């Protein structure tokens, strides 16, 4: 690269503040857009608690919850994706691609439909995410997260989970199944306030832990021997990282369903912007939050009053990009 790279942390700080600005703009736009149009000034006033009761109701009670839920989900999925990419040293190894989100959905649907264990959706989604991850690793053999097997095993697990979800939905009354449908393809409209709170707590915890182990995570990009020489406890870091990405994925899915491509796209964007050599955790989280907020905004305004689930929007936007990564004649480091 010929460009002069600014001092390391300056560049990342710049990128982070840019992404933060983007997130604030998309959040405000999303808050002010809807069937009832509210001006930006009124939106801000409502957020500060100084608007008339109607505007206050629309912004703070109808839209804010949804936008915050989207923001949290996007950030959690993006962090999980970035983390898993780092652990697997494979930019395709994200929860969306290896089927963790589908498995979490299947478990959460089971709890909603009332088959088998009826724990809260958050707990069930977590259990699903953990099961899928364990399976993907177990089936990929002793080679851990490395290589293609992990990903193909994940595709298989995702397919099984999706089929099971379909079976469960075919066993309930058709009107119920139709009502549950948007959530099974990823949507913010049916979020459960309890699950959102759990997600917020999990995300805060996860983010703090990640910040604490950033240095160790950064060394994972090197060969194992180098990382060990640099003082990283490889196994512990991997297990902790994997546990966190399962936690974040499961909690996010319990709120928004399988919007898996966020976990690939947001880290991609963050990596493209940030200084190479470090893992852009914060940037990924900010980018993921913006992405999901915008996808949700598009989904509810494109065919208003009908809503297109955010998962469908993100698949339509994200799949072509993923295809482009995969089909480029000379891919960047795939493994």
């Amino acid at each position, binding site marked *: 690269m010929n460009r002069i790279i600014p001092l390391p942390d300056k560049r990342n700080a710049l990128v982070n503040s840019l992404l933060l600005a983007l997130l604030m703009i998309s959040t405000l736009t999303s808050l002010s857009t809807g069937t*009832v149009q509210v001006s930006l000034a009124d939106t801000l006033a409502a957020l500060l608690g100084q608007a008339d009761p109607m505007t206050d109701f*629309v912004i703070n009670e109808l839209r804010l919850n949804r936008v915050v839920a989207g923001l949290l989900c996007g950030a959690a999925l993006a962090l999980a994706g970035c983390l898993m990419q780092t652990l697997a040293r494979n930019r395709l190894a994200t929860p969306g691609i290896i089927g963790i989100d589908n498995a979490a959905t299947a478990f959460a649907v089971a709890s909603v439909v009332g088959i088998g264990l009826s724990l809260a959706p958050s707990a069930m989604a977590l259990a699903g995410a953990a099961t899928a991850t364990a399976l993907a690793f177990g089936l990929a053999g002793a080679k851990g997260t490395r290589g293609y097997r992990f990903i193909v095993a994940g595709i298989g697990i995702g397919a099984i989970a999706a089929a099971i979800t379909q079976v469960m939905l075919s066993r309930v009354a*058709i009107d119920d199944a139709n*009502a549950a449908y948007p959530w099974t393809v990823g949507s913010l409209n049916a979020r459960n306030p309890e699950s959102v709170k759990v997600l917020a707590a999990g995300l805060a915890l996860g983010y703090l832990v990640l910040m604490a182990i950033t240095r160790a995570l950064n060394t994972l990009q090197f060969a194992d021997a180098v990382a060990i020489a640099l003082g990283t406890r490889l196994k512990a870091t991997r297990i902790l990282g994997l546990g966190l990405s399962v936690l974040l994925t499961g909690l996010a899915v319990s709120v928004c369903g399988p919007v898996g491509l966020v976990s690939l796209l947001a880290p991609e964007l963050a990596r493209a912007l940030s200084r190479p050599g470090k893992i852009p955790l914060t940037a990924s989280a900010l980018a993921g939050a913006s992405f999901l907020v915008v996808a949700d905004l598009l989904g509810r305004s494109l065919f208003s009053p009908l809503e297109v689930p955010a998962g469908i929007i993100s698949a339509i936007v994200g799949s072509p990009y993923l295809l482009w990564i995969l089909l480029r004649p000379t891919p960047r480091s795939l493994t």
Partner: protein
Amino acid sequence: MSRPATVALNVLQRCFTILVLAGLSSGAVTADTRSLDTAFGPLEISGQPKRIVTLYEGALDTALAVGAHTVGAVITRGGNHVADYIKPAAGNINIVGTPGETNIEAVLAAQPDLILAAPRTSEQQYRLLSRLAPVVVPDIPMFEADTWKRETRLFARAMGRADQAEQVIEQVEARIAEVASLVRERIPADQRNATLIRWMPQGPLVMAEGLFSAAIIQATGFRPNSKGLIKPGRPHSEPLSLENLSGLDQNWMFLATLNADGDKALAAARKSPAFARLNAVQANQVIAVSGQLWTSASGPLAALAILDDIEAAVLALQP
């Protein structure tokens, strides 16, 4: 006209309007400040609401039947707008969502002074909606013969139109009696067994005996029977294998699809050999009906429309 004169006239006009309104509403208030039992506790409503949003097929039907002014409704299940039978009465009504999902902002924009909601409205949804206007969520057992009457009365009382509701219900009962006597006259007592089926691409669904339209069928003298294929509390069975169709064979079959109109449903079903060999089909006693009316709707207007369908079918029999 000079400026002071205009102002004076305006003031006069306003006073007059206020007087008239006060006269109207005071009459209504003294006549009826009522407490309703809803799924989320008792609800006090006074006066006669002028801007009603209905989030349930049965509520829209009742509102239109008693002549209330509706400013918003949800689409009927399986369609892109309200059901055809109610379109003439509803006109180009403002749509505020689907039965599964209400667009609360659209409800807000409609500025309702009363919201009539579906029996299964969630508490979360209820709390948001009740910030906009009083919300009536029926607490009436579903799938019983008189469910629709109790819902109609509840909604009508909320709208301050209980008298109109009684009139409409009487009208429906008179029609039931009319059609029932026609049925008695034309169809022997031992040949009135009937099935109500919704023909889905996945396979036929049997609708529950307690379903609204099944209750109307029963009131006219037919005997709907779902052969125990429905789990308790469900409005219909799962899509059945075609191999089970012959087990549902009865004297009469009312056949609907959720989407297309009845004739298309019949055409689709007739292509299936399992359907063609049913006794009801061979005796030409299959009545093709609209699924939106027969399996999604409820309320007095729906009852009248269903009774028209039954009457037409019985009249078409060769005496």
